């Protein structure tokens, strides 16, 4: 028998004190007073530790109370399984929550003429050419020329791109800064999916950056949404859809975008 269970042993042998329950009740009743006394009395490290313990206890208590409150809510009838009604044949199925176009909502939005030209990020910081390009000075001949540029920002390069001969290549888009995919958020469904980039539609900085496929904050890109299963009014699968970049890809190392619906 372990040494530490001597109280239990004693109780088994001789029974509890006659006033055991009474004392226990009283101690429990004094608990609150004791705690407040301690909280006022303690100093230094002890006080710090005590406060931390009480803090954790209180959090736990609040959580428990909340749980009980939820349990006590009386409802008439079973709650509905979801907000959008489904026919009986779809009720027991776990449907993949694909980000499908809320076509009616889109229609309404299109009706508002202004919405057609509004994008989530209307204004962006201007980027100067000095920041965007770095003059290439390496090599014997390039150093003399001084017209070769390296783009210092992330870019999108189409899959069918082939580099021009070195002699004629004015802009170099570094391999390490090329992106093929973007994390696209559907604003209404609040779903984020990684989708392949199709093209750069407009870089607000300058048309030249659009042509070069530079990905900066506010750039409109076209993404392949065929995975989302969006369907046009006439029942065709939507393939490409526009999105606007919401982060600074050169800082973050990824492209985040929001779908324009």
């Amino acid at each position: 028998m372990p040494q530490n269970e001597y109280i239990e042993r004693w109780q088994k042998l001789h029974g509890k004190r006659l006033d055991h329950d009474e004392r226990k009740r009283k101690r429990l009743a004094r608990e609150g007073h004791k705690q407040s006394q301690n909280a006022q009395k303690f100093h230094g490290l002890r006080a710090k530790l005590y406060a931390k313990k009480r803090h954790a206890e209180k959090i736990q208590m609040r959580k428990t109370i909340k749980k009980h409150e939820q349990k006590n809510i009386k409802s008439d009838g079973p709650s509905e399984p979801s907000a959008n009604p489904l026919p009986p044949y779809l009720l027991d199925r776990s449907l993949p929550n694909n980000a499908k176009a809320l076509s009616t909502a889109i229609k309404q939005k299109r009706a508002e003429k202004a919405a057609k030209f509004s994008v989530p990020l209307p204004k962006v910081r201007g980027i100067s050419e000095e920041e965007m390009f770095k003059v290439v000075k390496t090599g014997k001949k390039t150093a003399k020329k001084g017209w070769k540029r390296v783009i210092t920002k992330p870019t999108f390069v189409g899959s069918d791109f082939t580099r021009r001969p070195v002699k004629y290549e004015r802009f170099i888009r570094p391999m390490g800064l090329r992106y093929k995919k973007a994390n696209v958020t559907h604003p209404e469904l609040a779903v984020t999916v990684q989708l392949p980039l199709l093209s750069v539609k407009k870089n607000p900085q300058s048309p030249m950056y659009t042509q070069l496929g530079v990905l900066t904050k506010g750039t409109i890109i076209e993404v392949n949404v065929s995975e989302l299963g969006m369907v046009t009014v006439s029942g065709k699968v939507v393939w490409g859809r526009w999105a606007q970049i919401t982060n600074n890809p050169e800082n973050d190392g990824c492209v985040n975008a929001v779908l324009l619906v």
Partner: protein
Amino acid sequence: MTTVLPPKSKRQKLAESKIAQAQQKIDLIPEHVPNVVVHLQAADTGTQLGGELHIPGNTTAQQLGLLVNKLLGTEDDRVPYTFSLLTSLTNVDSPIIDIANDLWTSVLKPGHKTTEDVLTLVYTPQAVFRVRAVSRCSAAIAGHGEAILATQFSPASSARMVTGSGDGTARIWDCDTETPMFTLKGHKSWVLAVGWSPDAKYIATGSMDNTVRLWDPKTGKALGDAMKGHTKWVTNIAWEPFHLQSDPATGHRFASSSKDQTIRVWNAALRRVEMTLSGHSASVTCVKWGGTGWIYSASQDKTIKIWDSKVGRMLHSLNAHAHWVNHLALSTDFVLRTAYHDHTGKPPVTDEERVANAKERYEKAATIGGELVERLVTASDDFTMYLWEPTKSTKPVARLLGHQKLVNHVTFSPDGRLIASASFDNHVKLWNARDGKFIFSLRGHVAPVYQCCFSADSRLLVSSSKDTTLKVWDVKTGKLHTDLPGHQDEVFAVDWSPDGKKVSSGGKDKAVRLWKY
């Protein structure tokens, strides 16, 4: 740089057209085909018609139709017939060959039979009326506040239609003026199932709030309060066939299937549960009331159970499926739904005549080869379907393989010759209802197909899909007849009126759409 060829001279063109004509001629039927000996046999009764007939081997199906009409003495009001060849009289499993155009191309040229053999041709009457394919959306009627989950036309006419919606109401629509008539308020949750009684006196609705309610379609008033009994939501409603009712005036009964694993049979006049059929061990997905007094139910416990509607005893349990059974259809569904309302639009007046008429129509539809056969097809989550003949055996007649995702909906054509199945693999497939042979795959939808419905003459099929469209298919050729875009979201429910004039559909975009030709 390619060189543009100079235009062809007249001589060259003539020569080419000559070659083309010669090539085309190969397909033509030869003019002189020896005579063949033909036995004509009725499909329903199996009786012989007119003994042995000597006819030319290049006779077309149309000419055969004329011949049958003449022999039956129905020349004045001709009935169109389709013909098929029995390859063997003794062997039941031998293939049956449909005669698409003429005897030569269908039978003699492929070598199924020679001109020496006696050909036994089975003739089946087709619908004497023709349903025109719907081609335009005549109305998109707003009214429901939530998605539409079920729709059904009145069996009496295409003027009335009822829809059940996620806003807890059902609505009756006047389809002639395309306006809402009545709003059936009462359910506390989604209306999942709607069903007209075969004599169009009642509408029963089943809901997510576990209750069933009855309504009077003439006044739009509720008949009594909610009928409680089920402990989970109601998935389907099936009315008792008209000719089986104990008393045609008051003896209306219907069955409702529920997620709570039971089927309840209700008396509409007394408004109480007559029987509770329990035996399934999972949600009952579909219930149908057959014309012989059997109730068929499909369940997620992988079985199909057959119940006696008189005493409520389970008669058979059909076990073959490997996963949930989603839907079942009877070969007589159409006549049971419409009872005594036929294409003429003049239903009989007295109750006796009505019962007699309904019974006659049922027997005509169910008779194959001289015996009453009610066939059953079940669609399942295991991507297959089974064809059953429960009166004969609890073993399936055929297994219908081909779908690549779960099969959601299955229907028999009104003449009982075809089966159409709608699946989540974006295809509708057509099957022969006699032996379960695959006929066509109807490709065109780009998302799961939810439901499909035949036209009353069995010549067209409409399917509704998640891709927001309805599509009308030509059953004979297996081609897309018309594409019906218009819905703005998924189409959950579709129904073709029994007289073939209108199609109604409803879905997630909350508008009921009516389609006409």
